[in-house]
């Protein structure tokens, strides 16, 4: 099965808002999803510069095609599980 790509923004504002903690996924991912995901750190995806969408804040993480804003470690892990489950069905 193809792995689910998880893109973590490591641009400045995402980084200071907590993306660094999400990067832990790379080194210590929860066992159930460990071999199903591929973590890619990316540079700014420009979501933060979208001033019309002020309700959205970093850190931004793309789980497959889905954007997670104000991402935290838990929020991303939950999203990964949700997407993986959806794919199974």
């Amino acid at each position: 099965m193809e792995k689910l790509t998880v893109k973590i923004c490591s641009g400045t504002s995402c980084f200071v808002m907590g993306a660094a903690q999400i990067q832990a996924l790379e080194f210590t991912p929860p066992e159930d999803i460990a071999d199903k995901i591929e973590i890619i750190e990316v540079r700014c995806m420009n979501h933060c510069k979208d001033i019309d969408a002020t309700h959205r804040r970093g850190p931004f993480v793309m789980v497959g095609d889905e954007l997670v804003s104000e991402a935290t470690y838990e929020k991303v892990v939950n999203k990964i599980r949700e997407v993986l489950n959806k794919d199974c069905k």
Partner: protein
Amino acid sequence: MSDSLFIEIGTHQQQKHGEDCFGDTIYSKKIPEERRIISILSDGLGSGVKANILSSMTTRMAMKFVESNMELLRSSEVMMDALPICQVRKISYATFSIVDSELEGKTRIFEMDNPPHIFIRDGRPLNVKCKELSSPKWKDRTINISQITTQEEDRIILMSDGVTQAGLGNKLYPLGWQRQGCLDFVLKTIKKNPHISAHDLAKAIVHEAIEKEVEKKAGDDISCVVLYFRKPRKLLVLTGPPFDEDKDKEIAELVSYYDGKTAICGGTTANIIERELCLKCEIDKTSFDEKIPMSSIMEGIDLVTEGILTLTEVYRMLKEGIDKDKNNAAVRLTRLLLDSDKIDFVVGTKINIAHQDPNLPMELEIRRNIVKKIFRLLQSQYLKEISVRYV
């Protein structure tokens, strides 16, 4: 200054174990109009605050005298007269070693009571002819004056007696490490790494001296200055997107035609270069750090980092010293800056909207400001040649 020769000055110091303050003082100055560099190392009598005052006074006075080409003997007399008299030893005293170097090649070395300098040419020690002078007023003090025309790849090493006497009390070094021990170490180090920077060599010498000490505790102030005469190493630091997008292409071309190393600091800036030059860019996971975003690898570029956080950390390390046990993007950039002589900054002035969010930490400075702080420090403290262009 000319492209032909550059003098890199590297220094490293360790204070005597238990003291807060350095008893030795190192002071270097560049006089661009005269294409001249003066570097002074002074060791104050005793250690701690008193020694620090004596050696600081000596370096400051000596700098003024040498700078204004005052006659040396007279200058030394004035210095010795001016120093406060030690309550314990009833003498006023601080040693000095002065290197006065013109970029055209003429270099003079004045020494009083410090261990004799080491001059390295073609990987071998060179004994520079010296003349002795003594003042009628202070008969027991002699000053050695050496003069030589320097060439590319020459090195001059100045040290305080803390280096040569390192290891006293250690059974393995009954007479201390001595100048010969230090010289052997220098030759070995240069043989292993012929282009070692002045900065790294000075650090290596001081560390090696500490290794010799009993319990690795410095028994005296240990200081070392290395002057390295060489072709300038150039570095281009590109940070920030240009204010006007039409300039993107021009900036990218600057990177591809630059005759030296290149560093890009900033995600958006990296994206521009990646797009304009059709290069591939990948995050370098070996630079992982919790506080600093990882660097990236881009073909033909020596270092690609995030912008403002990395630059802020670089500024901190330039002020407080490099974090030895880390290898994050900021440490790599600081090393790259310190290993370069001529640094050309090209600073894009476009404001990053995302950074203006009031929820972000205060430390997120405006790029122009942090770059200004960095290049001023590189100029004044590290004597680098800097050019800055805003786009």
